[in-house]
Structure formats: structure tokens, C-alpha cells
């Protein structure tokens, strides 16, 4: 029997980490992810885990320590947010290119400036090309479940890539909700022990990691990373299927909510999906065929699968909780429309940048999106494709 609890998103993640009992956790506190290393350090102090907890002096050091630990042959985890992730920037690329399956909990927050500690996805979107797998979580349950699946995906021999599990800062990280936890023993047997094939502390095989990689070699190593990201698609589905057998909870690349018979739909990630589900239900009471596609797996991006699940719609709105500031669309929008175009699927699709810096996104906001989508569906004219939701000065 699973354990029924009520936990915040940060508590859920730290309990998942306790159950995983990694060899090393190196982290530096930053709002809103601070509680994760804070709770975890109490588990270390109380002897609930036998993890080496490294209280580093910066996030650059946190990621460096994780890289060192993972290269040595240990299982390493960390947590951060926003500017903490920014300070890890250099090391994020080292971690992925050295193929070290580090697992990070990224509690999404606006990257300054001006200074803001609240939720948007600008931190995760900034790291979207860093070679990390990125899984997004609607609520505390998904954040917990994604962390439990993370090592199985990241450490798979055909993948060997670092992985970050995203959840919305404060909105889910600090909100207490009901959750179903697995028993410690079940987590232990599901996650398994980390057995790297090559590692620095193996005295039977002295190796060099991260050597000079000039014009004749780097391209091939990047091609390998790209292949690993493609392989990750298969492995994510395999691990998710195994997880479903254990828990009954289904995960894929994305969740389709009332999408199969929908005419208009919203595409979004993380907690906004919860608000969107409520809005879809409300609109359906009035006979409006609204639907939702909630992306869980943003890197690798399941372009073909997303395109396929959206092909029957009359109009689509992609909601980006980060502005790419590129005089065009947000990152999710561009990936979705590029995926559809490549699959020769042409559905009128508009983009909304929303919720920046923790701006509240209410069901009435999502209703407004659906109402504008109805017009697009009716006329087939997308008008301005690059729209804003909830910013003053726009209609």
C-alpha cells in the first residue's frame, strides 16, 4: 500500500531524494528551492541517509562537486533555481558533454533582473540547449514521481545524460497538497544501485575524463550527445511504463486532457496545466470543445508526437512562461510549430507569453485564451501570432 501524505513540492522532492539515498548531494541555497537542500541536510544530520552532503560556496561549485562525484562513480544530486542555475551555466555543459547522469531539481523562478524571486520558466528555457533532459511537473505528485524516475532514465546506458526535474516555484514548491508516496523499499528496488561502466575511482582501469577535444573530435562527441537525447525518448517511455505498473500513475511525453475530440486547445507546462484543466471542464459545460496538451518532456522534445496529437484541432494556443525576447515566439511555441510544420500539419497556432515574474494566471485568463482561439478557429485568421496574457497595456 502506498503512503498517503500531504506535502509541499519541495518536501515531496526532498523525500524522494531521501528514499533514493544518493551518494552525494552538493547544493547552495536559493529561493524557492532552498528548502530542498535544507530538508535534505536534516535527513543527513539525523542519519536517515548516508549521503555525503557538500555545503558548497556557490552553485558553480555545487555543479562542479556533482560532476566530480559522478565522474568518480557516485550518484549525485542537486537542487537550484533561477540565478543559481545561471551560475551553473558553464558546468551544465561540462556535465552533459562528459555524459554524467546527475539529477537536479529545478524549482522554476524568473532569472533576474530586475530582481524577482517568483515563478516563470526563464531559468529552464535558458538551459534548454545545454544537453540536459528536462521533465516538467504539474504538481507535487509529478515532481516526486519524476525524481523517482530520473536516475533510471539518466543512467541508462543508451542515454547517460544529466536530467533536471522542473516544478513551479512557490506555486507548487510551497503549496501543500495530497500526495501518494511509495514505500522506501519499493523506491530502492525501482531506482536500483548506480553501476557505472567507467569511473575515475576504478583502480583496475585508470582513465582520463574531459580531455582536449579539438576540430577532429568535438563534432563527433556532440553527435553522440544528440543520439543519446534521441535514445532518451525511448527510455523515458520504458521507465514511465514500468513506473505505471508499480504505481498506477501514467506518464508519457505529455498528457492529453480532453484533447481527442477537442476543436481548440492550449499547450502549456507545469502548474498552469492544472488551471487549464479546470477551465477546459468549465468550458465543456457550455458545449465548447476545449482541450489541453500538457508537455512533460521538453528535452528531448517529442516534436513528431506533439504534432500528431494536435493535428485534428482548428486552432491552438501555446503558452510560454518565458519570453525568448527574440521579436518572435517563445521557446515552446517555436518547438511546437516547427514540429507541426515538419510533419506537414498546418493548424492556426498562436503564442501567448504569460505569467512572467510570478504574475498570477487565473482560470479567467485561460478562458480569455480559449475565447480568442474560438475566433481564430472560426475565421482561420491568426492575426497577431505573438500575444501576451496578463501584461498591462495589451488587450
Amino acid at each position: 500500500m502506498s503512503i498517503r501524505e500531504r506535502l509541499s513540492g519541495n518536501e515531496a522532492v526532498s523525500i524522494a531524494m531521501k528514499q533514493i539515498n544518493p551518494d552525494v548531494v552538493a547544493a547552495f541555497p536559493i529561493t524557492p528551492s532552498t528548502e530542498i537542500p535544507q530538508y535534505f541536510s536534516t535527513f543527513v544530520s539525523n542519519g536517515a541517509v548516508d549521503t555525503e552532503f557538500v555545503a558548497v560556496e556557490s552553485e558553480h561549485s555545487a555543479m562542479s562537486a556533482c560532476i566530480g562525484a559522478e565522474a568518480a562513480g557516485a550518484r549525485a544530486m542537486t537542487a537550484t533555481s533561477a540565478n543559481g542555475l545561471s551560475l551553473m551555466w558553464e558546468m551544465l555543459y561540462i556535465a552533459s558533454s562528459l555524459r554524467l547522469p546527475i539529477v537536479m531539481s529545478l524549482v522554476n523562478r524568473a532569472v533576474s533582473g530586475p530582481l524577482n524571486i517568483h515563478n516563470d520558466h526563464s531559468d529552464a528555457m535558458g538551459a534548454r540547449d545545454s544537453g540536459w533532459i528536462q521533465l516538467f511537473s504539474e504538481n507535487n505528485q509529478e515532481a516526486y514521481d519524476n525524481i523517482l524516475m530520473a536516475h533510471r532514465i539518466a543512467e541508462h546506458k543508451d542515454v547517460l545524460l544529466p536530467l533536471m526535474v522542473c516544478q513551479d516555484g512557490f506555486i507548487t514548491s510551497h503549496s501543500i497538497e495530497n500526495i501518494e508516496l511509495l514505500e522506501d523499499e519499493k523506491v530502492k528496488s525501482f531506482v536500483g544501485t548506480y553501476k557505472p561502466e567507467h569511473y575515475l575511482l576504478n583502480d583496475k582501469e585508470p582513465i582520463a575524463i574531459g580531455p582536449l577535444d579539438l576540430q577532429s573530435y568535438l563534432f563527433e562527441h556532440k553527435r553522440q550527445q544528440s543520439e543519446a537525447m534521441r535514445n532518451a525518448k525511448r527510455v523515458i517511455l520504458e521507465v514511465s511504463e514500468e513506473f505505471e505498473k508499480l504505481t498506477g500513475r501514467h506518464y508519457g511525453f505529455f498528457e492529453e486532457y480532453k484533447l481527442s475530440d477537442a476543436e481548440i486547445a492550449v499547450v502549456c507546462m507545469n502548474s498552469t496545466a492544472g488551471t487549464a484543466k479546470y477551465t477546459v471542464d468549465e468550458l465543456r459545460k457550455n458545449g465548447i470543445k476545449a482541450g489541453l496538451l500538457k508537455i512533460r518532456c521538453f528535452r528531448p522534445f517529442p516534436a513528431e508526437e506533439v504534432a500528431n496529437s494536435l493535428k485534428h484541432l482548428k486552432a491552438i494556443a501555446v503558452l510560454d512562461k518565458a519570453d525568448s525576447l527574440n521579436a518572435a515566439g517563445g521557446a515552446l511555441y517555436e518547438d511546437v510549430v516547427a514540429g507541426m510544420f515538419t510533419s506537414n500539419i498546418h493548424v492556426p497556432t498562436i503564442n501567448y507569453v504569460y505569467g512572467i515574474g510570478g504574475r498570477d494566471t487565473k482560470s479567467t485568463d485561460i478562458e480569455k485564451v480559449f475565447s480568442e482561439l474560438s475566433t481564430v478557429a472560426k475565421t482561420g485568421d491568426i492575426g497577431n501570432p505573438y500575444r501576451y496574457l496578463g501584461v498591462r497595456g495589451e488587450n
Partner: protein
Amino acid sequence: MSTPIDSNTSWKDMTIGGNIYDAGNARNFTTGDWRSVKPIYLAEKCKQCGLCFPVCPDDAIPVNKEQKRENFNYDYCKGCGVCAKVCPFGAIIME
């Protein structure tokens, strides 16, 4: 012992992340093609004082079993000229 990798190896056959699964592999990395000038060894002026080979930052001055230096191994010589600077007898010139 890992499979040799060179600039014709496909990405499918390379080790991930450029990992090298052999110890002492720096010997396989010849740096001699970086050179713009090279040291010339004048054996007749050399007193075998032993000052040159410890300052070589690579492996360009071989020392034999009799503890005597031999001619340069240009595969590892970057032409930095430190050996010529340190030689008190003018037995190494750069050209």
C-alpha cells in the same frame, strides 16, 4: 586497452565524452606541429650537464640509459626555446 581513435573514426565508434580508457596516454598526443621555430642540438658543444631536459615542458629531449641526452624528438617539441635559454654552453640554438 581501448580501440585506437583517429580523425577518421565515426562518432558511432568513439568513446563518449572523449573518455580515454588507457593510462599514460599523453605520449600519443604529438604537439610538434604547433612549432614555428625549432631547437638544433650541437652535440660537440654539449657537456651533458643535464640542465635542459628537466625544463622541457613536454617529452622532446630523450635521455638514454647512460643518463645522457640524445637528439630532439620533434614529435613533442613546441619550439618554446626554454632549453636553448637554459643551456650554459650554447649547445642548443633556435632556428
